[in-house]
């Protein structure tokens, strides 16, 4: 497991039913591309997050397949519809099999 991985997500706490809200996500990860070389000239093996998903009450909002050309500390911004009160679940899948997730609740009001 890569060290110091910390997901950060920005979601409004309240939304009107059916409203489109903007979500911003960031996760600290070195996203080693597999192209760089160390001091001895050996290739540093690839270690990236290869998939990111966002779901609201079990329904998919976005599912992103990521390649090594995504920058260090992957950032995503997108819009989601909130039909009712519930929870957003954000999940990141690492190359090494680790899964990082975080949850945010949205109230209707």
């Amino acid at each position, binding site marked *: 497991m890569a060290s110091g991985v910390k997901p950060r997500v920005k979601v409004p706490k309240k939304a009107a039913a059916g409203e489109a809200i903007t979500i911003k996500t960031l996760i600290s990860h070195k996203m080693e591309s597999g192209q760089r070389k160390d001091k001895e000239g050996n290739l540093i093996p690839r270690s990236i997050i290869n998939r990111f998903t966002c779901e609201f009450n079990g329904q998919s909002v976005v599912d992103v397949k990521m390649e090594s050309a995504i*920058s260090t500390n992957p950032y995503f911004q997108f819009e989601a519809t909130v039909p009712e009160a519930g929870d957003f679940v954000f999940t990141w899948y690492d190359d090494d099999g680790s899964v990082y997730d975080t949850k945010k609740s949205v109230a209707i009001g």
Partner: protein
Amino acid sequence: MDFSRRDTLGLALGAAALTVLPFRVSASSDAAIEEFTGGAAVGEGGITLTAPEIAENGNTVPIEVSAPGAVSIMVLAAGNPTPGVATFNFGPLAASQAAATRIRLAGTQDVMALAKMADGSFVKASSTVKVTIGGCGG
């Protein structure tokens, strides 16, 4: 100016390398496009790719793609060692078929976005980004 046998050979090799290299790069991105579209024709319009004209640092280039009515959007950087960047698959709760992220670019090149629409058609857009410092190590 006289060319020796060695000079001539060197020139010929250099020229051959120059013609082969760009072809190899575009071939790998063509393969990625082929895999995404399944060989279907790709149209224009209906998709927007926003990228800076000049990126000082190829390690983090902010880009934004938007294609109303798309099922999925694939972003490609043909000039990178591996052309694939990301594929966004939008679910039923996506309020707009748009996303923004930050990508790595190895050098000045065209960034391309391909969208698969709900009716099964494909559209693309591309944008040239000048990169001052490449972002793929080395």
